[in-house]
């Protein structure tokens, strides 16, 4: 294992060096990708080895970070799982990036910086999963944030991109502050922040402190994971970043928030009262629903995907929250089911969201725009990208037999198990969660019909789209890998679930559920509530799909087919202006959920100067601005500015005033020292 670890370290560093040395050359780009692939491959192997053997890998450098008790690394099965997730997301993204970053050879962005930060980002992110004491964890965490910040502002020419970067850095730093607070309360300022000691200390803390730690951790990690309302940086930063980086940010990095939450709440604190789980569940539901609702209204392909990351994080948290609640009531196997559902969705999301971002990247690469209203007809011009994007869309819409369906099924089943919670009023939370989760997945399907249909089908809506071309092989290769991943994770669920059981074994007193939920190719849930086999379902679907045409052929029903214009109420010729737009597609849902969107509508009609019976033009505009952004963030910014303005008064420029300050302070302090 040590060899694998060193291999990972060295590969990433070589990748970074290659970026510095290689500069803008194609060779440089390939070497950067090679380093990243090798590094994340080694990391994946390391994680797999730890999970397979069940033996944690530990390594520590006492002479580094002496103030934090040394640089302590320890990879247990939970960390290993997330290291695997990093690998799953990073390898295709790196391959894809080798081709994609060619777009920056025109000097819009600094390729060396991109390469260096790309590798360092992957390195620090991998090390987050290995950190075993507070300072190491915080160092790697902040390193991950910083490097990803530089990746986000790759195209720093653009004002919008810089804003996004600042938002991102501010939010993530806010998160770090909260985490620092949480860890400090946990350690009580003790010098050794070693996680083993924390587990010991956590038991002796007062309930109040534990709750505070939990809340700080939830907010801190939540700001990274992108829970509503701390998600504001996602829809800004993810579109701004280069697409293969967006894939990593959205597919992998935000999962580190989930990792941290599990690590602190479940591992270090060892679980807590029911409302902890309930809060996570509630946050999850809200994030899932609002995420998908705002995604529906987006016509910027990458922003749409970013909002879907919010949604999927919500789904993951629903599983984890349910797990925590069951954990509280000692329903261990149900708890395990919830956590397994959450973790399964983590890796699934890593697969299909990365795939979708890469697909969006190819579209951007080919058309130069992220605006769906200018696309269309790409399925003919970039067939491969279209197929891969379709796979991703089916997977994220949780449609069988792909992977999204399996994890959502598991989460559903764990929620259904809520019946067993002894307290009815607590149990009553579950059906609501079930309903909203179902609504979320339904809306997701609707949203991806829009995303795929408007982007790839029908006629091109702009010249850019009409002249689009398929992307180079390296990009297609990256997408192909992820597409296979989506299928494999769906079909081979019976093999994945036991691994997740092993990952969770012993965490916060969870039992080893390796064999519990699977029976050869079947998944089944405790107390025999439900049973399913995605494998056989996929097989059946494929069989039927193969059978049908042959049956038709058997009955000689394969008549010839004739191409013609679509029926248009008598009009001849078909133009793109007649197609349904993304806005139009989303309009019904916008009306249905108007109370949540609070759309701003403006109708201006100007009449003919002579008489108001002749209308010259009618302009209708409707905007949707996330109202809770204003409600939550503006007060902070405004109060900060207000205080700042007061402070400026202090430095008013008058020397006498300044001297007066001194005199006043002196006298006040003297009086204080004399009489108090």
């Amino acid at each position, binding site marked *: 294992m040590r060899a694998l670890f060193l291999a990972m370290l060295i590969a990433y560093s070589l990748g970074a060096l290659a970026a510095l040395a290689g500069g803008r050359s194609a060779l440089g780009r390939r070497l950067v990708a090679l380093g990243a692939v090798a590094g994340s491959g080694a990391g994946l192997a390391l994680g797999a080895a730890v999970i397979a053997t069940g033996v944690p890998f530990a390594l520590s450098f006492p*002479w*580094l*970070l*002496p*103030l*934090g008790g040394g640089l302590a690394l320890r990879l247990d099965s939970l960390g290993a799982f997330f290291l695997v997730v990093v690998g799953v997301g990073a390898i295709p993204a790196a391959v894809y990036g080798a081709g994609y970053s060619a777009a920056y050879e025109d000097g819009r962005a600094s390729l060396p910086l991109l390469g260096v930060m790309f590798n360092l980002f992957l390195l620090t992110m991998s090390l987050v999963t290995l950190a075993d004491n507070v*300072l190491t964890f*915080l*160092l790697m965490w*902040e*390193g991950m944030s*910083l490097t990803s910040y530089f990746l986000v*502002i790759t195209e*720093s*020419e653009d*004002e919008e991109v*810089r804003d996004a*970067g*600042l938002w991102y*850095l*501010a939010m993530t*730093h*806010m998160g770090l*502050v909260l985490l*620092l*607070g949480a860890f*400090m*309360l946990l*350690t*009580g*300022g*003790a*010098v050794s922040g070693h996680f083993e000691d924390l587990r010991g200390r956590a038991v002796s803390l007062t309930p109040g402190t534990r709750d505070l730690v939990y809340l700080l951790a939830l907010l801190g990690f939540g700001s990274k994971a992108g829970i509503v309302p701390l998600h504001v940086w996602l829809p800004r930063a993810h579109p701004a970043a280069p697409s293969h980086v967006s894939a990593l940010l959205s597919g992998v990095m935000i999962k580190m928030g989930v990792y941290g939450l599990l690590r602190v709440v479940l591992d270090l604190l060892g679980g807590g009262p029911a409302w902890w789980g309930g809060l996570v569940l509630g946050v999850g539901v809200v994030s899932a629903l609002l995420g998908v609702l705002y995604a529906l209204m987006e016509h910027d392909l990458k922003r749409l995907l970013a909002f879907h990351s919010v949604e999927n994080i919500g789904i993951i948290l629903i599983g984890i929250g349910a797990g925590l609640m069951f954990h509280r009531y000692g329903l261990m196997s149900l708890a395990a089911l919830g956590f397994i559902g959450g973790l399964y969705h983590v890796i699934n999301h890593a697969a299909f969201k990365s795939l979708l971002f890469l697909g969006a990247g190819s579209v951007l690469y080919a058309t130069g725009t992220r605006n769906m209203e200018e696309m269309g007809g790409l399925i003919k011009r970039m067939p491969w990208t279209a197929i891969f994007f379709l796979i991703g869309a089916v997977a994220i819409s949780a449609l069988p037999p792909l992977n999204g369906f399996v994890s959502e099924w598991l989460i559903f089943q764990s929620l259904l198990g809520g019946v067993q919670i002894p307290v009815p009023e607590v149990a009553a939370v579950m059906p609501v969660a079930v309903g909203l989760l179902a609504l979320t997945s339904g809306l997701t399907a609707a949203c991806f019909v829009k995303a795929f249909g408007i982007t790839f089908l029908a006629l091109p809506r702009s010249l850019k789209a009409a002249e689009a071309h398929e992307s180079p092989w390296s990009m297609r290769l990256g997408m192909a890998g992820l597409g296979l991943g989506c299928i494999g994770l769906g079909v081979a669920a019976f093999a994945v679930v036991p691994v997740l059981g092993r990952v969770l074994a012993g965490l916060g007193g969870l039992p080893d559920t390796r064999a519990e939920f699977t029976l050869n190719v079947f998944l089944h849930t405790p107390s025999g509530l439900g049973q399913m086999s995605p494998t056989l379902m996929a097989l059946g679907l494929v069989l039927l799909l193969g059978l049908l045409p042959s049956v038709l052929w058997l009955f000689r029903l394969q008549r010839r087919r004739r191409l013609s214009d679509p029926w248009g109420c008598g009009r001849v010729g078909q133009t793109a202006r007649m197609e349904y737009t993304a806005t139009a597609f989303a309009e019904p849902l916008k009306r249905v959920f108007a109370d949540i969107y609070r759309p701003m509508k403006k109708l201006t009609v100007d009449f003919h100067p002579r008489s108001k019976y002749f209308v010259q033009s009618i302009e209708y505009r409707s905007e949707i601005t996330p109202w809770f952004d204003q409600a939550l963030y503006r007060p902070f910014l405004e109060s*900060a*500015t207000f*205080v*700042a*303005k*007061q*402070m*400026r008064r*202090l*430095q008013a420029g008058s*020397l006498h*005033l*300044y*001297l007066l*300050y*001194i005199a006043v*302070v*002196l006298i006040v*302090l*003297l009086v*204080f*020292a*004399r009489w108090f």
Partner: protein
Amino acid sequence: MDFLALLFPPLLGALLAFVVRPYRAAVGWTNACLSMVSLGAAFLLAASISAGRHAPTFGPGELLRADGLSALLVVCVAAVAALALFYSPGLGGESPYDTTQLRRYQIFVNLFIFSMLLAVTANNVGVMWIAVEATTIFSAMVIPLALTKASVEASWKYILICSVGITLAFVGTVLAYFDFVALAGRRENALNWPVLLSAAPGLHPEVMRLAFVFLVVGFGTKAGIAPMHTWLPDAHSEAPSPLSAMMSGVLLAVALYAITRWKVVVDATLGPDFSNELLLLLGLFSLLVAVFSLVLQRNYKRMLAYSSIEHSGLICIGLGLGPLGVFAAFLHLVCHTAAKSMLFLLAGEVLHRYRSTELERVSGLIKVMPLTGALFMGGILAIVGLPPFGLFISEFALIRAGFAAGRPGLMAAVLVLLAVGFVALVGHSNKMLYGAAPEGITLGDVPGNWRKAPFLVSVLVLATLGLVLPAPLEVLLDQIVIVVTQ
């Protein structure tokens, strides 16, 4: 002996600059080399002390004395002095000043350096006071090098505020001495720090309380502690960049050093609570003022100045937090010195290229001066406390000390304020670094990138401190902790 090697070169430099008229570049270079000599001496001193040589003294009546605390400060001062002299105007390259101005610059800057070195090595707290006062006078002579209204105004405010403040510090000194006399009769060496310290437990608490108030307000004025900080943004923004680098990098540190010295004595009389409370109060207030003055800042040199206030506030808080805090505070001091001196010197280059200190006039620095821009970014990342730089570690240690001292509320406030400052600083420097370069500006770094080598050294130092704690430094810091919290 090494005391001479330490203190003599700057005097010699001043003398040289005084006799050689008109000014020649050779003088500047000679003085730069001389500063290297005293830097070497400083390192030797620090090495010998960290190697266990206990508090060497020198001169009639043990005029000079150096323990771990002095050694650390001596190294900082000498290093920044060397850096500043190396980047002084008039060492080749076109400079905005004429020879008489440059001559004045060389004379007084060297005297300034000398007085700072004297302040941190003086055994007699009276002499220490004199040296600190002298720093004001000498540096004030350099600020209005080019006579502009702004620079004259800044220097007048600077000298008046600091003189008044420092005079108050002298009141405190006199009070302490008075109490000593009341206890043990008049003695010539009564103001020698060790003597004072040994007598301290018997002094009158109520008198020492008053004395410490005078001392904190007085030296606090020089240390840029709010609300006595008002001179600082003006002076730092108007002074020639090397001087700003020295003032922000080490002058504040010297003043804090004086406060620390007196804190030890007062604590010996009163116990630590009184001084701790006072320092925490003032430190937090400085942090508050500095951070929120950063939010709407329009001038990047003032921005850096306010960040210096922020950091001396942090160091004050650290000093008030017991042993762990003191350790963190002085580690923080070292890191801040390394980062801020570099930043001010770079800001000088930016000013020279963009001809403006306004933030909105500066954009696309990365493209205009790639190396300078990269270094500037590094410095900013360092002072906002991002890894892998030393301030991340020192701030972490400081926060941890606060929690260990059982002050979570205070630390929460500090964390929030730090976060605000973080956003403000990063936001402003984002505007500076990226975006389109203003038209008509010459692209490319200043000729002679080899002169940037010292900056790489400071970046290296910062990065090293972010990952490891070199043994000598650790020994020094431990000695300091022992000295301060004995």
